[in-house]
């Protein structure tokens, strides 16, 4: 679909109970989204350390998205609330550092929302692709 | 399906924003339509015939002037299909053609009675002519 050849690199952290299952459901229903999205499974969205996100951007990721259970539905009762608060802080700090807010996102996707997962990924990839490459935090020593 | 008119179909779908494939053929639109008996083709047939591309038949039918735009079919449709918008799009496709106005300014004086509100005339001109 993309006119230019530029393919963004997207890292998606998905919680095991809702969003990873939602991604599986998108697969079961054969709902397409770009292959630029690479999923890392974590037990809960609150397992995602800000360091992981910084590392991803240093290593040349163009966008990072966190997916967790809907508020109130966390398998661990309250993990996604921590995520929401932590990421609000982190994302505004990243924005200050020049990583645009559009490159980072937290989205709630339940195990039943395969369609939402695919739609979210399509939208996120499109948004990040429109911004172009992330160079701001990229660690040049990591570059091949 | 000899009377397929794909060009008009595409135009009508675009103009109305309606997706006739959402229709599950329950017939609630035609069950609710207050103008049903005046129409040759009924709301559910508009949906079906637009989908199959039989637009020409619809364009030639007086049914397109019978819709009251009361939107009962739109609100009561369980699938959000909005048949009234299809009727409107077919009618506009007709009256936007040259010389196809269903009502002209000349015919208005005959309509006037003392109480008829302007609103009716303005609306009619908008619905029946370009």
């Amino acid at each position, binding site marked *: 679909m993309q006119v230019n050849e530029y393919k963004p690199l997207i890292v998606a952290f998905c919680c095991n109970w809702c969003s990873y299952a939602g991604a599986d459901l998108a697969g079961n229903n054969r709902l397409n989204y770009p292959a630029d999205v690479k999923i890392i499974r974590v037990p809960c969205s609150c397992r995602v350390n800000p360091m992981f996100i910084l590392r991803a951007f240093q290593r040349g990721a163009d966008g990072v998205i966190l997916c967790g259970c809907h508020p109130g539905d966390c398998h661990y009762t309250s993990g996604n609330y921590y995520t929401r608060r932590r990421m609000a802080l982190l994302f505004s700090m990243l924005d200050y550092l020049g990583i645009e807010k559009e490159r980072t996102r937290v989205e709630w996707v339940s195990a039943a929302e395969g369609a939402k997962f695919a739609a979210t990924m399509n939208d996120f990839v499109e948004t990040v692709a429109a911004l172009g490459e992330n160079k701001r935090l990229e660690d040049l020593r990591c570059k091949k | 399906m000899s009377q397929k008119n794909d060009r008009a179909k595409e135009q009508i779908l*675009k103009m109305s924003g309606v997706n006739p494939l959402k229709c599950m053929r329950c017939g609630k639109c035609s069950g609710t339509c*207050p103008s049903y008996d005046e129409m040759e083709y009924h709301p559910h047939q508009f949906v079906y015939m637009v989908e199959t591309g039989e637009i020409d038949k619809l364009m030639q039918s007086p049914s397109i002037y019978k819709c009251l735009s009361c*939107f009962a079919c*739109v609100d009561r449709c369980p699938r959000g299909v909005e048949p009234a*918008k299809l009727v409107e799009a077919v009618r*506009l496709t007709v009256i936007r053609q040259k010389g196809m106005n269903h*009502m002209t300014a000349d015919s208005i004086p005959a309509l006037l009675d003392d*109480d008829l509100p302007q609103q009716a*005339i303005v609306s009619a001109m908008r619905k029946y002519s370009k």
Partner: protein
Amino acid sequence: MKVSYFPGCTLRTKAKELDFYARKCLEKLDVEPIEPDNWQCCGGVFVSAKDEIASKLSSVRALKSAKEAGMPLVTVCSACHNVIKQTNYCMQNDADFANKVNLYMAQDGGEFTPYNGETEVLHFLELLRDKVGFDKVKAAVVKPLTGRKIAAYYGCLLLRPNKVMAFDNPENPTIMEDFIRALGAEPVVYAMRNECCGGYVVTDDPESSAKKSAAVTENAMNAGADTVMTACPLCKYNLSKNGGAPVVYFTELMAEAFGLKEEQHVTEE
């Protein structure tokens, strides 16, 4: 409270009493109606086609002027309300449409700011319910319409499409009934109150609208109504022509209950 007040053409001609009593009552309720400068006819009916732009510009201009004045836009006539509210919805939700409209409007000259559906559109009844409060309406009543059995006729324009109008429950609305109760009369609930009177089709096929209007009034009378109340000049026309019930505007009833009717009369020109 000040509101931007869109009367519409019919209220300037055939439906003067709808407008006249509306203003009288607003005065009593401490609401100041301010007419937008140079408003134009809303077009009478909303054309749902997405590519119909020019005919909706007059509505957008009224909306934009209300936005600039920082006031909600209040309409009295059901038809104006439907057209303006639907147009505003398109401005909010159809980016392509809004863009095209703004391009047109930019050619109006002067300093241009785009409009994207920011204005709140209120029907007069919504103004009474949500901003003034029916309690206050009730308190202003000096001659309660006790004993009157009034059938509210909603028609289509105020209620549908519900997704856009969000006026009341489209199948079991209560706003007019609550209004009638506030005036001291007894509301008559009947099933046909949200069915179409035949509308503008009267110009093309009077028989069709006669049939529909007759069914409405018959249902209201059978339910025990002595009066039918409406907000729309065209509904009033159709229903009065085709049924035995007296049809009055809601503003007229309100003026009556407020004790404003005897003192003031619409001057016929």
